[in-house]
């Protein structure tokens, strides 16, 4: 197939996931097709309960779909075991979560180095990589801190360093600002944009439109399905004097 577009980092077809708990079964994901190409920054937005986190968990192998298939870099993951997915999550997929999920008994430095060491990176190189990321993320001097001693925003930056330490082609982010204040949200937004500008492929799940607007493609997710898939150019010239009615001068 002749195709000039960047390669597909991720491709999902016909994904279905139903949660069977108490009460009626919850149809979290009801037939989702999705393709993410190298260098894209895609946001999935929708109300809470729409199934967008479940979708992200399926894409990161944290849950298994009832039906459908997922390809990473063109390779089918259908036969992947739990252990194989764990390897993928160390090498090809980085994930950040709403509640950071740092190991509370390990220092900041160890939290970031651990996935590198587990992936077989020599300790010296893991240390160097950790130092580079922490300084990049403004966390110099926090190496020996324990996660509990850091603010939410700082913990999320550590989580971001951990997710990126092995240079995964794909970064998944599940409500990364969901437990942060407005300032922390802006910080996460700025960092995601910066990594994206350097070529990082990002798939972000958020209910926060401010965060989603950092992406260049926004998918609206409702009731387990994609209802819109819009490329944001941010280029539509404002029709009024101000950027929006909110900023309009009245005479």
């Amino acid at each position: 197939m002749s195709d000039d577009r960047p390669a597909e980092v991720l491709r999902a077809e016909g994904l279905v996931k139903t949660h069977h708990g108490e009460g009626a079964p919850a149809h979290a994901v009801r037939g989702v097709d999705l393709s993410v190409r190298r260098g894209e920054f895609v946001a999935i937005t929708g109300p809470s309960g729409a199934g967008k986190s479940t979708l992200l968990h399926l894409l990161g192998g944290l849950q298994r779909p009832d039906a459908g298939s997922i390809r990473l870099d063109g390779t089918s993951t259908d036969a992947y075991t739990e252990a194989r997915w764990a390897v993928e999550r160390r090498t090809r997929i980085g994930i950040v979560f709403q509640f950071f999920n740092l190991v509370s008994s390990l220092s900041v430095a160890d939290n970031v180095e651990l996935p590198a060491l587990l992936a077989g990176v020599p300790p010296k190189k893991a240390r160097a990589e950790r130092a580079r990321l922490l300084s990049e993320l403004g966390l110099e001097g926090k190496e020996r801190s324990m996660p509990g001693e850091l603010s939410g925003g700082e913990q999320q930056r550590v989580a971001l360093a951990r997710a990126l330490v092995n240079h995964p082609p794909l970064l998944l982010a599940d409500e990364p600002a969901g437990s942060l204040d407005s300032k922390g949200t802006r910080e996460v937004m700025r960092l995601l944009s910066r990594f994206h500008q350097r070529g990082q492929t990002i798939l972000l799940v958020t209910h926060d439109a401010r965060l989603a607007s950092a992406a260049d493609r926004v998918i609206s997710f409702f009731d387990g399905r994609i209802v819109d898939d819009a490329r944001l150019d941010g280029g539509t010239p404002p029709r009024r004097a101000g950027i929006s009615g909110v900023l309009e001068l009245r005479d």
Partner: protein
Amino acid sequence: MRLPLLALLARGPAHGYELKQDLEQLLGSAYPQPNVGQIYVTLGRLEKQGLIEGEDVEQSGRPNKKVYHLTDSGREALRVWFAEPEDEPRVRDEFFMKLALAPRTGLADQIALINLQRRQYLNTMRQLSRLASAEDRDNRIAHLLIEGAMLHLQADLDWLERCQEELEDL
């Protein structure tokens, strides 16, 4: 723009161009750049209403400039301005009318309308994000203005979500 100009004059006399610069500096790039012609017209009106008074100041080699100062009734108008709360922002009524009337016309689909409107808001949100990152970090007023606009848009987007939830199954 009448009252903001009065407010700028409360600090001391100024001419039209100075007022334009003050406004720009205070509000940052997010605010529509005030047109200097519009400022002069407004100043003329304020003077006619007795809220400000202008005085011609001679300049060597250039035409006179007019320096304005606030009058007592101008100061009173400002007090009234500050004492009154403002109306709340209104729901975007034109879009709401489209949404309400679409099914009766058979000419537009409600969900398609919502999607179109959402794209518009998201693009504006993106422009605001860019403005925020370009704006001087220390200009708190400018950042609050942009953040206010973003939060309003967020509310509009949340409301579109509600519309979609309600209307999708019909």
